[in-house]
């Protein structure tokens, strides 16, 4: 199922639009990346898609369903997961309880739950080691893993990922990317990734959107963005051209 | 913006509806209020208005207020149907005012009754602090007030011409209580009271009177919102009193009976209710079906006493209407309203000065005898004290009229 964003205008306060007529599309099983300077509206776009923010105009479709006015929990049921930039965990619950909360929508399917837990622990032996400890005692990297692992418990068809490596050391960041792409491939899900870390993140992508000032500047398949062009884009962004 | 404007209009329309909806049926919709007997209205004569100033909502004591209100309303009924109205046969109509147990609201209420509703007299007044605030305004506005149940001595001691009282006040109640304890041979007396004006005043008076009579008194005062009095009762139990005065107001008094029973204090140690709340026998026996027997009740009325004509009328009418015997609160509310109506009738006008003069000099038939309220000394200024009797429920489910009369006391002013 395609995710399709058409001419969306959105913002937090009346009169201030963060997203300015933005359009993009994510195909099944593909990875699209959104790059662009700080404040370009990348995170806002993900929040709008996931229903935390209602667009003022425009349409958002997942497959053939319009999801622009759906609240987040209904969107989750459609098979979309959202991994926000902040550590999205429950600090006072144990790691395993956190993961189980991630599986809320199929909580009554015990077999699937057990299977999914095993699967997660397989990929993240570290989480298994700490499964009975409270989440607030984990390190930053482990918290990031947990935030991701919790959201992919449902084997989503589409993952919206916001800055998965923010606040991580480069080594851990690389691990996080590996896990993400591994998950994406294993689940055959699509992914819409927002990232600062262009050089590394772009390696994962099939399709690239460059967003600035709330609209798409340039887009095209990954192959069109070779190192030189990317450098140019980064430079342009840094220089604000 | 437009949506908001619309909303505002909607709000005001709604408010208007609420206001009209509730001001139209006004007073007569309440279940507690009796529809004033329709046949009794002498035709085409303008009514004489009388004010009922009572606590009908928190932080006042609405339960007491409602009982007094019943009496006042039946008083109006009595004046209109039996006595043929007040001045020139004009019927009496009650204007009810909620004082919320708050001095300022009470003072405002009195002002409003007098200046807006043009009442000829005001009765009610339950909380002492409200009475004191009303006093000062009454001094200015000159319309007489008969205090139904404000216990504080200062209410009349301030010698305000317009203020009268027909209530059994703290010092006299204390004399009766201690006298009764002595007559029973008790040497150690415990009193439990909440920190309301009644409880505090009574506790102080009992301590003084007990000391004067050579009795040991242990006084416990707790906050009126307290629900669990077990620690206090345990303490009293270990002190070993020979009789307990239960000086609660409202619901605490019931809980004291229960909780004293639970820890084995009552009925082993006799308990005396310092006001006559157990007189509402139906409520009392429902609340204390197994543990209520033996309680002593200080009250103003017993079946064996001779009631006046008006007293008898009230007793029967109240029994018929509410299925229980009237309590002291109701009786006094009734009596005070009749007093006001009579005073106006005798004065031949609703003028405050004239009515005050009649009340001060005349003698009136009250539910319990003849009332005079002359200019006395101290708290005895314009004060008439009803008789004091102590009765006892000797068996379960006894009605007030069957209660055993164990003590009578008649206060004579020195």
């Amino acid at each position: 199922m395609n995710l399709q964003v058409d001419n969306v205008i959105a913002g937090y306060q009346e009169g201030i639009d963060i997203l300015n007529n933005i359009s993009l599309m994510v195909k099944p099983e593909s990875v699209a990346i959104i790059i662009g300077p700080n404040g370009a509206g990348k995170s806002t776009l993900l929040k709008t898609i996931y229903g935390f923010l209602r667009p003022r105009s425009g349409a958002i479709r997942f497959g053939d369903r319009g999801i622009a006015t759906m609240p987040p929990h209904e969107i989750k049921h459609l098979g979309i997961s959202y991994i926000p930039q902040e550590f999205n965990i429950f600090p006072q619950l144990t790691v395993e309880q956190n993961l189980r909360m991630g599986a809320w929508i199929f909580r009554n399917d015990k077999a699937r739950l057990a299977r999914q837990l095993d699967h997660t622990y397989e990929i993240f032996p570290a989480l298994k080691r700490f499964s009975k400890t409270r989440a607030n005692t984990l390190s930053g990297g482990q918290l990031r893993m947990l935030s991701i692992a919790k959201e992919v418990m449902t084997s989503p068809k589409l993952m919206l990922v916001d800055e998965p490596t923010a606040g991580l050391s480069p080594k851990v960041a690389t691990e996080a990317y590996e896990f993400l792409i591994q998950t994406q491939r294993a689940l055959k899900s699509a992914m819409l990734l927002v990232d600062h870390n262009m050089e590394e993140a772009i390696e994962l992508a099939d399709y690239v959107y460059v967003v600035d000032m709330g609209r798409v500047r340039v887009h095209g398949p990954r192959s069109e963005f070779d190192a030189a062009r990317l450098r140019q884009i980064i430079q342009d962004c840094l220089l604000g051209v | 913006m437009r949506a908001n404007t619309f909303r505002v209009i909607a709000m005001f329309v709604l408010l208007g509806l609420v206001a009209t909806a509730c001001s139209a049926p006004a007073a007569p919709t309440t279940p507690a209020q009796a529809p004033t007997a329709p046949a009794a209205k002498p035709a085409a004569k303008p009514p004489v208005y009388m004010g009922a100033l009572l606590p009908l909502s928190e932080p006042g004591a609405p339960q007491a207020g409602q009982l007094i209100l019943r009496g006042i309303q039946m008083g109006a009924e009595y004046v209109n149907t039996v006595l043929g109205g007040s001045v020139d046969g004009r019927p009496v109509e009650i204007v009810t005012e909620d004082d919320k147990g708050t001095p300022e609201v009470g003072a405002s209420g009195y002002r409003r009754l007098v200046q807006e509703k043009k009442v000829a007299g005001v009765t009610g007044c339950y909380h002492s602090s409200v009475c004191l605030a009303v006093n000062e305004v009454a001094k200015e506005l000159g319309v007489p007030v008969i205090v139904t149940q404000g216990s504080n001595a200062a209410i009349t001691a301030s010698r305000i011409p317009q203020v009268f009282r027909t209530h059994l006040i703290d010092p006299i109640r204390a004399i009766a209580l201690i006298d009764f304890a002595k007559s029973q041979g008790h040497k150690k007396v415990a009193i439990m009271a909440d920190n309301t004006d009644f409880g505090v005043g009574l506790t102080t008076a009992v301590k003084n009177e007990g000391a004067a009579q050579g009795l040991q008194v242990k006084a416990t005062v707790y906050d009126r919102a307290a629900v669990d009095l077990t620690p206090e009762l345990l303490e009293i139990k270990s002190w070993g009193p020979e009789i307990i005065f239960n000086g609660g107001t409202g619901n605490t008094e019931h809980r004291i009976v229960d909780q004293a029973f639970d820890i084995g204090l009552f009925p082993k140690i006799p308990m005396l209710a310092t006001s006559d709340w157990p007189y509402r026998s139906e409520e009392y026996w429902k609340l204390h079906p197994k543990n209520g027997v033996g309680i002593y009740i200080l009250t103003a009325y017993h079946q064996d006493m001779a009631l006046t004509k008006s007293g008898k009328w009230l007793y029967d009418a109240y029994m018929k209407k509410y299925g229980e015997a009237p309590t002291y609160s109701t009786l006094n509310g009734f009596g005070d309203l009749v007093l006001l109506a009579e005073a106006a009738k005798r004065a031949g006008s609703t003028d405050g000065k004239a009515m005050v003069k009649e009340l001060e000099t005349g003698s009136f038939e009250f539910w319990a005898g003849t009332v005079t309220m002359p200019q006395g000394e101290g708290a005895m200024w314009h004060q008439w004290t009803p008789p004091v009797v102590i009765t006892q429920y000797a068996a379960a489910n006894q009605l007030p009229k069957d209660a055993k009369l164990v003590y009578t006391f008649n206060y004579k002013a020195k």
Partner: protein
Amino acid sequence: MTITPELLLNFTIAGLMIGVLYALMALGITFIYSIMKMINWAMGEFYMLGSYVQWALVVFLLGADYWFVGIIGSMILVFVVGLIVQRVLISPMFTSGMERRDEYGTVVTIALSLFLRNLMTVLSGPDTRTPGRFLPPVTLGTLPVSGDRFAAFVGALLLIFLFYLLLNYTWVGMAFKASSQNRVGVQTAGINILRIDQAAFAIGVMLAAAAGALLAPVFLVYPSNGAIATVKGFEIIIIGGMGSIPGAVLGAIALGLTESLGSVFISSGLRDVFGFVLLIIILLIKPTGLFGERERLS
């Protein structure tokens, strides 16, 4: 007064028992706060509703033998009332607009408490009511206790235990705990946060109603009987820390013991002041209460 060991023991038992009952009154307040970050000033009125429903059910429908059914009945009924009140009154105070304005919630719950209490005052007349006394007295150690109070004590313990089980061993309970820690997180997990709020409010007021129903025979039924639940409940959640469930239970027992022992050693007249003294001491030492969350400037 001479303090004998027996007396001291009696006071301790009495304090513990009332402490557990206080805990049930405070649980609902702290639970609603932990999820909605809102103080329900009308909590005592739901306690009052619970006691009236219990009285009505026992007297008109069930009879004294089935008083425990009445407790469940009043819990269910008040739960439903809570669902409606949250939907119609509370939730609209918080949803619209960017800023969260606590004062709207404060004003609307204050008004609701005035409304319910005064409506009941007018409707119920001057009568104090009781569903009846159901159980024979028991003796705990050296302290004779009324059967109904003991039943309320056991009932409160049971409800606290059930509540503990609900929170820790069920999916819904886990969702409540999760919502109190991270409201975005539960939404990305596919939970409807609005329904969590609604359910939390309803469960909170249901706990207050359960306290009201259990204590109806002991502390009686009248329109302002909920005042005690509000006052003690707030004292306890400040002592224990707002939003903390264990804090509420321990704070309640601490308050019960302080009041009871304070009246032995100091004076019973000031008993209700002791709780506040304890509270102000705790505020001075640890402003967020025994188990309170930390509040930081930035």
